[in-house]
């Protein structure tokens, strides 16, 4: 089908496909960041429930290295803060990509209709694609 498209439309279609790929990558990164965030929040909760003289260890590969409650708490708090920022940034990026995708999709459909080409029908798969969102 792509071979029958005018070169300009072909170019836009390729851009759309690239955007779709970007959207999937961003969604995967966001999901990863959300998972790590949730894990770190749970770890903080676990520390909240524990006494301050609890023996704490840092996991280094298979090894457990003795650490301190306060050090672990501080590090986990910092981790949660930075992960919240990361998730927020990725959400904004996701939104930007979605807007770009929709604009481009509209342009392409107009281009095809203007050229008397086949009607848009069901548009391209959304930028998120199946399972890309994850939430």
């Amino acid at each position, binding site marked *: *089908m*792509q*071979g*029958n*498209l005018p070169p300009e439309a072909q170019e836009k*279609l390729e851009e*759309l*496909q690239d955007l779709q790929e970007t959207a999937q990558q961003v969604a995967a990164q966001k999901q990863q960041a959300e998972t790590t965030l*949730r*894990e*770190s929040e*749970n*770890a*903080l909760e*676990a*520390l909240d429930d*524990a006494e301050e003289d*609890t*023996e*704490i*260890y*840092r*996991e280094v590969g298979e090894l*457990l290295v003795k*650490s301190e409650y306060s050090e*672990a708490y501080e590090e*986990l708090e910092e*981790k949660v803060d930075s992960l919240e920022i990361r998730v927020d940034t990725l959400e904004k990026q996701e939104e930007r990509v979605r807007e770009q995708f929709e604009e481009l999709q509209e342009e*392409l*459909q107009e281009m*095809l209709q203007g050229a008397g*080409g*086949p*009607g*848009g*029908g*069901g*548009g*391209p*798969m959304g930028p998120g694609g*199946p*399972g890309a969102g*994850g*939430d």
Partner: protein
Amino acid sequence: MSLGGGGGGGMDQLQQQLEALEQEKEAVEAEIEDVQGDKTDIDEAIDALEMLDTDDTVQVPLGGGAYVRAELESIEEIVVSIGGGYAAERDRDGAIDTLESKKDTLDTRIEELRSEVAEIESETEQLEQKAQQMQQQQMQQMMQQQQQMEGEGDEE
């Protein structure tokens, strides 16, 4: 992605999309299996914690099927991973609680993954219907063309 009408190209593209969805579904299902494996590991750890007592003799695996005998100094000093790269010492009940809450987290993840599978399946169904419609359209077009050609042949 369907931008064109009923050409064979559109059909190819639908086929590609269906294959991509199938691959995606397989990947999500594999992840569900991994998570279920993690849950089984946790269950085994909980069983061990419930079964063992201080001063029990155990055989500690060294790998390669080799074990060394050891005596448990205290069942009330269990180091359990709490996530985020840290582990904390808990008493037996505390360790079991931590492990149970990990299992809850894994259950939530399994539910999320299952709903992803359901989403992929419904998308697959829609695409399959579309493919079927496209095929029917092509068949009708072919039949019309054939009838037209036969009609023209009769006129001659």
